[in-house]
C-alpha cells in the first residue's frame, strides 16, 4: 500500500468511514511507516481540535432583533398581495418563439416587495439569433414575474438592476440595494449553481449553494456546454447581436469588481446559435495551468502553452456541462445521459478520468 493511498484511508478513518478490512490495512501500514504514522497523529490532533472549537452562541437573541422586520414583511406581504393582483396583467412574460420539439424551460424571476421598487428594476432581454435574424428586445419594468420561456434560437440576457437607494420596507428582505444580476438562458433553466456574486438572491434561497468553483476565483468559471455543439468559444452578445457576451465588465452595470467569482451558465441547447458564438473559451484552472473546452463530445485540456495535453473519452451526443476545476489539475463535470446525470472527473496529475 502506497503512502499516497493511505492518506485517503487516514482521512476516512477520521470520519469513522473505514470498513474493518480497510482499517486493518491502514493499521498494518502505519506499523511500518513512520511518516504516515506522524501524519495520522497530526490529522487526529487536528480533528480533535476542530471538534473542540467553541460552540459559540449569539450574544443577543437574533429572533428578538428581527421581530420588527418580520412584522414589516407581514405587512408588505399583505399589501403586495393586493397590488400584485392588480398588476397581474402587467407582469412581463416574454415568449420569443415556440419550438414544440424542445423542452420548454422557464426562468421565473420573482422579486417580492418590488411593488415599491417597480420603477427601479430594469429587465433587458437582448434577443437575437432567430433564424430570420429578427431581434426582439423585451423590457420589463414591472416588479412582478419575469419569465422567459419557449425561446427559440435565442439567448436572453436579462440585466436587472435596482436602485442603490431602494429602501422600502417590503424590499428589505427580498431585494437588495446593490443587486445586479445577469441571467442568461436559452431554452433551459438557469441552474441552481448559477451565482451572481452580488445578488443576495431573490429566488434561489433554498437552492444548493452551488459552490463548485475552487478558490482563487478570478480565473475560474463554470460552464455547461453541449457536447454536441462543439462549442469552444466564449459566448457574448455583441453589438451585432450575433454573440452573447459573458464578460461582466462589459455587459453588466453594477459592481463589476465584485464579479470576481465564477458564474454558472448553462449553454445546453445553444446549438441553434452556434454560428453566433465566437472567440475562444477555455475554462481556466485556478492557477491557470490548464484550460478546458468541449470539442466533438470530448473534453480537451490545453496546457499553459495552449498545447493539447489531454483529451477525454467522447460522450457523443450526451450533454456535458457543469465543468468545474476542483483544483488546478482536477476537473469535474456532468454528463446527462439516458440514465440521468452522471458526474465525471479528470485527474491530470494521474492522467486518468472516470465516473465519480
Amino acid at each position, binding site marked *: 500500500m502506497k*503512502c499516497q493511498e493511505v492518506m485517503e484511508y487516514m482521512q476516512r478513518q477520521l470520519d469513522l468511514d473505514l470498513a474493518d478490512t480497510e482499517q486493518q490495512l491502514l493499521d498494518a501500514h502505519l506499523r511500518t511507516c513512520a511518516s504516515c504514522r506522524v501524519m495520522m497523529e*497530526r490529522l487526529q490532533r487536528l480533528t480533535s481540535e476542530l471538534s473542540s472549537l467553541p460552540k459559540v452562541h449569539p450574544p443577543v437573541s437574533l*429572533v428578538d*432583533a428581527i421581530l420588527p422586520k418580520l412584522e414589516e414583511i407581514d405587512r408588505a406581504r399583505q399589501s403586495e398581495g393586493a397590488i400584485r393582483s392588480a398588476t397581474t396583467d402587467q407582469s412581463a412574460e416574454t415568449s420569443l418563439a415556440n419550438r414544440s420539439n424542445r423542452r420548454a424551460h422557464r426562468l421565473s424571476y420573482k422579486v417580492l416587495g418590488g411593488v415599491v421598487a417597480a420603477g427601479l428594476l430594469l429587465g433587458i432581454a437582448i434577443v437575437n439569433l432567430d433564424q430570420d435574424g429578427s431581434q426582439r428586445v423585451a423590457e420589463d419594468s414591472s416588479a412582478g414575474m419575469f419569465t422567459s420561456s419557449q425561446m427559440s434560437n435565442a439567448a436572453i440576457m436579462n440585466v436587472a438592476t435596482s436602485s442603490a437607494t431602494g429602501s422600502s420596507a417590503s424590499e428589505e*428582505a427580498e431585494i437588495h440595494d446593490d443587486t445586479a444580476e445577469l441571467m442568461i438562458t436559452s431554452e433551459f433553466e438557469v441552474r441552481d449553481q448559477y451565482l451572481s456574486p452580488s445578488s443576495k438572491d431573490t429566488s434561489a434561497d*433554498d437552492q444548493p449553494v452551488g459552490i463548485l468553483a475552487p*478558490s482563487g476565483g478570478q480565473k475560474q468559471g463554470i460552464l455547461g456546454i453541449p457536447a454536441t455543439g462543439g462549442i469552444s468559444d466564449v459566448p457574448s452578445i455583441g453589438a451585432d447581436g450575433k454573440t452573447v457576451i459573458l464578460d461582466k465588465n462589459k455587459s453588466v452595470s453594477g459592481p463589476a469588481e465584485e464579479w470576481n467569482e465564477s458564474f454558472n451558465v448553462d449553454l445546453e441547447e445553444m446549438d441553434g446559435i452556434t454560428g453566433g458564438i465566437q472567440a475562444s473559451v477555455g475554462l481556466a484552472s485556478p492557477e491557470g495551468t490548464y484550460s478546458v473546452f468541449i470539442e466533438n463530445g470530448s473534453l480537451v485540456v490545453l496546457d499553459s502553452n495552449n498545447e493539447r495535453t489531454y483529451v477525454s473519452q467522447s460522450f457523443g451526443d450526451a450533454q456535458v456541462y457543469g465543468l468545474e476545476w476542483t483544483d488546478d489539475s482536477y476537473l469535474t463535470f456532468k454528463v446527462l445521459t439516458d440514465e440521468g446525470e452522471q458526474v465525471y472527473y479528470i485527474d491530470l496529475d494521474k492522467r486518468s478520468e472516470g465516473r465519480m
Partner: protein
Amino acid sequence: MVEQELIRSAQSGDREAMIQLLREIETHVYRTAYYILGNEQDAMDAAQEALIRVYTKIESFEEKAQFKTWVQRIVTNICIDKFRRNKPTVSIDEHAMNFTADHSVEEEVVATYVSQDIREAINKLSDHYRAVIVLRYLQDFSYNEISDSLGLPLNTVKSYLFRARQQLQTLLQDYQKGGVGG
C-alpha cells in the same frame, strides 16, 4: 431536533410556531455564520438574514428534506455570498498540500494548536472548503447531510473535506514553525 409538528404549524401560518421555530434554530444558524465569516458582527448580520429568509420561505420547505440541512443551505448560501463579496481567499499552493513521506520524525513537534491558530487557519480556507469543515465539525453533519446542505455530490464533499483537512494541518504546521501566521 426540531419537531415536525412545529414545522408544519409554522408552514400553515401559525406565527407563534414560526417564531418558536426560529428560536430553536438561531444558535445553529449563528454558529455556522460565525465560523464561515470569521467575526461576530458579520455573523450576526448573516444569521439574521438567514432567519428572515427561513421565515419568508418556510412554505417552500418540503418534508422529504431534513429541516436542518435546508436551514444550513440557506445560511451557507448567504455567508458564501457575503464572503465572496467581502473577503478574498488566500490561494494556497495545492501541490504543497499533497502528502509526502519525506518528513522526518525528528521534525515533528507535538504541540497543541491553540484555538486561535485553528480559527486563523480556517479563515484561510476557500469558502467551500470552510463550509464543509464548519458543517462537519460545528454542526456534526455526516457526508450525506453536508451533501444535501451544499448541493454537492457526495464524492465532492469527501474530496473537499479531505483537502480542507490537509490544508489545515499544513497551515498549522506552518504556524508552529512561525512561517505563516499573522
